[in-house]
């Protein structure tokens, strides 16, 4: 437990050689799935099936199966959408922003976090697609020349969402694939079976590890990181505009964009820690995904958690300071009204429990961080629930006030989205390198020239 913080910890622990790194990362792909893997997969597939059945029934009978009512017209769909998009943001932050900040420790976790981004955005994409109840009409979301002569409304935040989320997914996917190309080439060259070799050859595009290519590759990686950084900020800003551009009290606030972005990073890091704790244990990657990495992520969770807490407090302050009666009422209603239980779950999970991370011992303890990050996941889901439902359920007309209760189908689709996410994660761990082989090799001890043998005497 005695860590010397005056020196930067090595990005790869245990002085692994390059061949050992490769061996460790490629091992899950070279071995047959064991019993534990199949059990985990069957659990997540069960959740996915529950979601698929709930969704199928919703398509058949319509959105009347959901708990949405008047005035709570927006409920689980937008809650889950914002929750999953937020989860995705950690991946881009780790892969792009920490890359630009030259944080070497990101290499061990970047690939996994990027994959989680893609899967989380896929989960998020389900909800805007299904919330109309007629997902086969979703083509109308895109501006295409049609016989009505109509175009989409480019000034609507909901359309900004379409562009932001689809761009985010595409760019994240491309970023991820570009990172995978050298690894595919490495896997191709160590593959023994012909089928594997063919598949890896196709996806590696015939990459040759040529230095004349690496020059452009590194440039492209930096350009992509440079674009992904403002993109990730724009995406959750636009998601917050879905609320902030409307005139509902409790939504119509200028603090929303930074507040949402901080919340997204907060929840995303929590999800990454949740999954990585298992992955590093199951696949023996403790030397590549070290305790130092997890500790650093816990520090980010602590920092963003307090930003979110500040935003909660500031919303109340502005409600009082503005002197707007309806605004004041909405926030008092949030904390003391019919949904007070949800509000206090949110506050305790997001603001109070992460404070344990001030203590180094807890930051570096796997069981403690496990409990806290799961609580953060729960809290961040409730944050979106509180924002959406409490602002709507008591709106301007007291005669139309109503309590919203989700139905079995609402819950089923939420469970299904978790099922989809974990199914994709589990399949990913067995089929692709969960750690970037070439990047980790590059930051291992002795991987870069020391300039003693070559530079000065040549």
């Amino acid at each position, binding site marked *: 437990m005695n860590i010397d913080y005056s020196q930067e910890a090595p990005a790869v622990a245990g002085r692994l*050689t*390059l061949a050992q790194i490769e061996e460790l990362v490629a091992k899950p792909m070279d071995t047959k799935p064991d019993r534990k893997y199949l059990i985990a997969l069957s659990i997540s597939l069960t959740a996915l099936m529950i979601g698929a059945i709930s969704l199928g029934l919703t*398509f058949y*009978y319509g959105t009347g199966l959901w708990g949405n009512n008047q005035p709570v017209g927006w409920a689980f769909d937008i809650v889950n959408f914002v929750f999953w998009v937020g989860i995705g943001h950690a991946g881009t932050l780790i892969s792009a922003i920490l890359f630009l900040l030259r944080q070497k420790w990101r290499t061990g976790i970047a690939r996994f976090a990027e994959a989680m981004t893609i899967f989380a955005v896929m989960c998020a994409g389900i909800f805007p697609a299904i919330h109309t109840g*007629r997902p*086969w009409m979703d083509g109308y979301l895109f501006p295409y020349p049609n016989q009505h*002569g*109509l*175009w989409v409304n*480019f*000034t609507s935040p909901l*359309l*900004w969402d379409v*562009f*932001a989320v689809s*761009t985010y997914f*595409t*760019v994240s996917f*491309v*970023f991820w694939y*570009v990172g995978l190309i*050298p690894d595919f*080439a*490495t896997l*191709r060259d*160590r593959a023994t079976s012909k089928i594997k070799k063919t598949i890896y050859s196709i996806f590696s595009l*015939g*990459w*040759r*590890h*040529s*230095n*004349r*290519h*690496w*020059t*452009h*590759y*590194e*440039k*492209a990686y930096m*350009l*992509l990181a440079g*674009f992904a950084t*403002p*993109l990730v900020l*724009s995406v959750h800003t*636009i998601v917050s505009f879905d609320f902030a551009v409307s005139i509902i009290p409790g939504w119509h606030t200028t603090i929303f964009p930074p507040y949402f972005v901080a919340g997204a990073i907060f929840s995303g890091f929590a999800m990454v820690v949740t999954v990585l704790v298992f992955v590093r244990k199951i696949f023996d990657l403790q030397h590549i995904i070290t305790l130092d990495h997890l500790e650093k992520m816990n520090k980010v969770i602590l920092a963003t958690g307090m930003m979110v807490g500040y935003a909660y407090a500031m919303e109340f302050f502005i409600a009082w300071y503005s002197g707007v009666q309806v605004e004041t009422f909405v926030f008092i209603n949030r904390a003391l009204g019919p949904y007070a239980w949800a509000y206090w779950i949110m506050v305790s999970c997001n603001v109070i429990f992460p404070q344990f991370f001030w203590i180094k011992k807890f930051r570096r303890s796997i069981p403690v961080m496990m409990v806290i990050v799961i609580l953060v996941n729960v809290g961040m889901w409730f944050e979106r629930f509180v924002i959406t439902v409490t602002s709507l359920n008591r709106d301007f007309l007291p005669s139309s006030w109503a309590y919203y209760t989700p139905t079995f189908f609402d819950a089923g689709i939420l469970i299904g989205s978790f099922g989809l996410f974990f199914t994709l994660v589990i399949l990913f761990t067995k089929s692709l390198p969960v750690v970037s*082989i070439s*990047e980790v090799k590059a930051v291992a001890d*002795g*991987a*870069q*020239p020391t300039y*003693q*043998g*070559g*530079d000065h*005497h*040549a």
Partner: protein
Amino acid sequence: MHNNKKLFGIAATFKTPNEIISAAKKVFSAGYNQFDVNTPYPVHGMDSAMKIKPSKLGFVTLVMGLNGAAVALLFMYWSMAVDYPLVIGGKPFFAFPALVPITFEVTVLLATLSTVIAMIALFFRLPDNKHPLHDTEYMKSVSGDKFGIVIEASDEMFKQTEVENFLKSLTPLNIEYIYFPPEESYAIFQPKFLLFLLSIALIVSGGTYFTLNKLMYMTPFNWMMDQDKLNPQKPSELFVDGRGMRTPVEGTVAKGFIPYPYKGQTNPVEVLSNPFLPTKENIALGKAKYFTYCTPCHGDFADGDSRLRGQFPNPPTLHSKRARDFSDGMIYHIITNGQNVMPSYESQITRDERWAIVNYVRVLQRAKNASDADLIDMNKEAGSNVAN
């Protein structure tokens, strides 16, 4: 063994990054240009050792990013302010601040996609799984944990023994000759391949046809069209008469309706008087309506020269003495009530329009039967003195 094959180059592998950096420098200073270094990850300092110029990839990003911004903004301007302007929230048609988010997203999308596509296709010339370096021991080792350099046979200075000795002087782990792989050829038009293409075409077109023309009209996709609600002009089981729409209550008066007192009388004793003065606007309205409703039978100038070619009996001319002596109210009565085979136009032409037509008919009658006094008046108006 490889004597009949064409040599691609000679490769050497090294164990440490320091060795490969110094090897690259020596190869470059020996004057070789066609050489490449293969390392499992980018080794820092290699670009300056190989004297590689900085990547120009950024220009692709810049140009395509600016293109994305311009295309997005112009398209949104065109669609929202030119092609189909809609007032949204009382804002200007071209509400620039509200268009910023999408402009930004499209910029990022186009910049990143074109950067990656340009990098892979133009800068790398990939995909290329037939490169001579593939499937060699050399490639396997540089893919793992070794650092390799290859001098290609296409270099002007390339001499087999000389290069081999030069590389050996760098004390590498291993030296390997790389040969071009044997040429493989495939016939494109094999029956199997053609069948494969044909089946793909059939599946895609059939699937598209089924989805768009059949599936979308099946349950539950058609539930938006077939709803349990009352439609006008459609049968319904809810009412005894089996009709979806209701007939008006007895004695219902249509909006703006004023009863015509002489309805049904062939020769009314008295008629209404014309409430409209023959102003320019009124006559223009009358002319338009006359052309729409009256000309098919009465002719363009009320001569009774029908253009129906005998499909309907020709009416008499309106320039007869009898017709000219009709009062305004009588002509109005005939339009409203009909006369002989002429049906009533009450339901098709509004009251005011009927009076306008009356005024226009008067214009036609006076034009065809002008007196000398009219001619003098006309010349006065035209500013000429021909008649004097």
